[in-house]
């Protein structure tokens, strides 16, 4: 794990160096040219190898997952692009079975399109992207995703990726066939032409790759369904390899709140990044550097930091040594700095979250919560959660968990996710679910958790599980506790009604025995016995008011979509113990 991070970092650094050279910056490290060359050489031999060795970290561990990851990366990119341009997304996804475990995947969006010169870099250069350097709530983060898919496609089928993109109705579309030069991590352009495309704007990518299509809980079908749940403003038209067309129509025309891009917060900055930023910056003094490159650092705060670090405010950033940088980091830790702004986060909202859940399961009770923004390591984040209980949900087995990060469903690695840990470490027994020790609670329950952040900390580049930051776990637990309290209210009410009904049935049951016993004891007539029964019934029942009907009414949930709910549930995958399947019947 550590090795990999170092590996990726070295890519980044080399890449940064490349760009710097292109930019003709004034600070080339001429003395280190030999070392630089060495580093380059290392990278050049290892890029394909690196991918081969680390494909599990990128989500290509097996053929089934490779297909899902490819779809996922393309969809993430399309949705990010649409959201940034305030376009209501409409995606068309087609997977065609070409035999011999080969599939052709095409993902088409109505997004803003991509400028011609950028297309090769975005799709055929690893670690290129707009997202890595910015702190903004995005689906994609690293700039690995789609180019990794292109690489995988190329490695397994030898075919080029076909991309067409159009940025405006008035211009023609650009069509590229691209491969990745695995020696140099550079795009290799196979074909480049202008084409007519009926779309006003948008992008379409087509890849051939080795994969396995299977329905079930970790399928493409399930992934797209969950994407639709968590992105109610998206329309997806999907044709699976069996030729079945599934349409997920948008549930709302309202565009989600457009999150702002923020500068990093000082609390989240580590030494390496700080040094890199110091090299990069256009600012001329260290004080200016602190106030412009970071959020929530004003003149006063910058002075305080620099004073604590014993560094004069007018020091040039590129003259800051490693030791000085270390002092700055320490000074930052000892300075009180305001939390980062939270307008950089776009939550889904408790209401829409609940609506999505209602579509998926027909339960008796729903509740949802959206927590206020919180911060981990200088990164603001928001936790949202929803819970469904009872109805058609199965009462035995662990509760079902739906996990989302920045509006992307997480289907794998449930066991090692901070969300799962938070669920296990919440005490559900006091909320009416059974639970043994620190395990996942049992009961007819589905829990949905969403984390939105400018930087979601995943346990790996495959972005399958959330890392275990105490601040995040604490927030998730607080959200779960709120859901739990609401759940308990419902469960307690249901139990009371049940008790009340039992008591009422007691009245019916035992009054005749009282009248009968009294008849044996004081010998009255049969007519009088009936009379006593009536008197007793009147006496006991008149105090008992109306009670709510708590029986499950299948037709009550109008949001519920049976066809929708079925998706991803048809075929159980016996080898996968990570995900417990829900079946309605």
């Amino acid at each position, binding site marked *: 794990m550590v090795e990999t991070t170092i590996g990726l970092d070295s890519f980044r650094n080399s890449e940064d160096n490349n760009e710097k050279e292109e930019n003709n910056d004034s600070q080339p490290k001429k003395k280190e040219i030999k070392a630089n060359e060495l580093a380059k050489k290392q990278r050049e031999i290892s890029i394909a190898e690196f991918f081969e060795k680390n494909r599990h970290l990128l989500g290509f561990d097996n053929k089934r997952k490779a297909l899902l990851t490819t779809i996922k990366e393309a969809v993430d990119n399309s949705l990010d692009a649409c959201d940034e341009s305030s376009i209501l997304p409409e995606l068309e996804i087609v997977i065609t079975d070409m035999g011999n475990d080969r599939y052709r995947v095409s993902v088409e969006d109505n997004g803003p399109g991509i400028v011609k010169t950028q297309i090769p870099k975005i799709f055929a250069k690893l670690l290129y992207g707009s997202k890595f350097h910015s702190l903004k709530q995005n689906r994609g983060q690293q700039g690995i995703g789609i180019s990794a898919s292109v690489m995988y496609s190329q490695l397994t089928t030898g075919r080029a990726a076909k991309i067409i993109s159009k940025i405006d109705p008035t211009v023609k579309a650009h069509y590229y066939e691209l491969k990745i030069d695995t020696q140099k991590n550079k795009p290799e352009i196979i074909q480049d032409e202008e084409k007519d495309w009926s779309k006003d704007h948008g992008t379409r990518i087509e890849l051939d790759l080795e994969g396995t299509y299977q329905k079930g809980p970790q399928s493409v079908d399930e992934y797209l369904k969950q994407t639709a749940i968590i992105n109610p403003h998206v329309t997806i038209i999907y044709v699976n390899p069996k030729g079945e067309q599934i349409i997920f129509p948008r549930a709302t025309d309202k565009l989600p709140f457009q999150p702002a891009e923020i500068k990093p917060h000082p609390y989240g900055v580590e030494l390496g990044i700080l040094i890199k930023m110091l090299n990069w910056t256009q600012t001329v003094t260290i004080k200016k550097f602190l106030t412009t490159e970071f959020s929530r650092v004003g003149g006063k705060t910058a002075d305080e930091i620099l004073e604590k670090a014993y560094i004069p405010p007018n020091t040039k950033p590129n003259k800051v040594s490693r030791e000085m940088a270390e002092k700055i980091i320490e000074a930052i830790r000892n300075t009180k700095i305001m939390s980062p702004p939270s307008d950089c986060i776009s939550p889904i909202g408790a209401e829409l979250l609940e609506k999505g859940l209602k579509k998926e399961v027909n339960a008796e009770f729903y509740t949802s919560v959206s927590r206020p923004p919180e911060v981990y390591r200088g990164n603001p984040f928001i936790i949202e959660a929803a819970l469904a209980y009872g109805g058609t949900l199965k009462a035995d087995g662990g509760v079902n968990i739906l996990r989302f990060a920045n509006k992307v469903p997480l289907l794998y690695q449930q066991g090692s996710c901070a969300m799962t840990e938070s669920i296990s470490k919440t005490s559900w027994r006091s909320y009416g679910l059974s639970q043994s020790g620190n395990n996942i609670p049992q009961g007819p329950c589905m829990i949905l958790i969403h984390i939105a952040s400018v930087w979601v900390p995943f346990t790996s580049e495959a972005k399958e599980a959330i890392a275990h930051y105490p601040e995040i776990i604490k927030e998730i637990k607080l959200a779960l506790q709120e859901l739990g309290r609401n759940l308990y209210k419902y469960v307690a009410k249901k139990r009371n009604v049940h008790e009340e009904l039992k008591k009422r049935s007691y009245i019916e049951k035992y009054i005749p*025995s009282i009248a009968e016993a009294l008849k044996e004891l004081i010998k009255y007539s049969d007519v009088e016995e009936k009379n006593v029964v009536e008197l007793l019934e009147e006496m006991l029942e008149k105090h008992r008011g109306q009670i709510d009907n708590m029986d499950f009414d299948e037709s009550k949930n109008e949001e519920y979509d049976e066809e929708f709910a079925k998706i991803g549930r048809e075929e159980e995958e016996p080898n996968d113990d990570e995900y417990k399947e829900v079946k309605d019947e």
Partner: protein
Amino acid sequence: MSEVIEKITAEAQKIYDNIKKKKRPVLESPIRALSNVKYNVEDGFFELKGSKKSRTLTASSVKTFAQTLKMMALSKEIVEKNDIATKREAYYVSKNWGDARFKEQPESDTVMDDIEAMLSVNREKLGFIPEEKGGDIAGKLIIIDKNPDTGKEIRIDCTKFGSGAYSIPSSVEELKFETEAKFILAIETAGMFQRLVKHNYWKNANCILVSMGGVPTRACRRFIRKLSDEMNIPVLVFTDGDFYGYFNIYRTLKVGSGNAAHINEYFCVPKAKFIGITPQDIIEYKLPTHPMKEVDIKRGKDALKNDPFVHHHKQWQKAIKQQIEMKARAEQQALAKWGLNFVIDNYLPEKMKKRDTWLP
């Protein structure tokens, strides 16, 4: 009409009248617990202090209400027919009651105890008898019973059971006695009773031996009470030297229990005295002991704190404290350390002479 039937009918009538008046009927009975008794020193038994629990007819009490009334009706029927039913039989009769039937016998036993307390008559008078054996008798006593068929008197000589014994019946009210014994010796364990019978201890000591077999049954307590009252002979109690022997056995026999406080008046033996094994005996006879467990010690501390009988008797308080300090208990059989018949040849004769070693 017998007194019991009158009481049952009156209670039923009261309930019926309330129903007619559209008032919720109430069942009332004394709380049966040690906290609700006081030690009546004059008459020598635990009597009720007067706290009562009343159960008003509500949706949640309707089941118990129905079962209580059905049980009262059953009692009335049994008494009218001059029959009896064991507690277990009563439980089975309830199986005819439809929804009001009992699921397990403890439920019916509780209802029975509540009726007993409510009407303050003992269970036997309601026609219900326990399953348990009453206890064994051997020694210088003639019991006059009746032949169940003919009603003719039968004289039972308790000296003539050889190595066996006479068994106390569940109802002892009709029995009569003839004896010239000097005292009654009530013994905790059947084993010790066997030894004393085998060696004709009763002959030499001129006494009546009673085997209680643990906590004495009501019949056993009533038998000893009746015998000692009518024949005017003292009662001595011989148990293990532990808190179970002192309180669960001896104190229950002498003054009654908290749970059955409503009937203690008839089921106690106020003149009983405790001869052993006392904590002091353990020391003086150098008896082999077992360490006391936490629960045993707790029983002693509870007695010091909550038992009105212990509160009244300083000697008992001293004995309990002494034993808690020793943290040890000794069984009756521990006397065998000094020889199997040490108890007959030495211990009992010595204890008989030294009245000051007894506990009240």
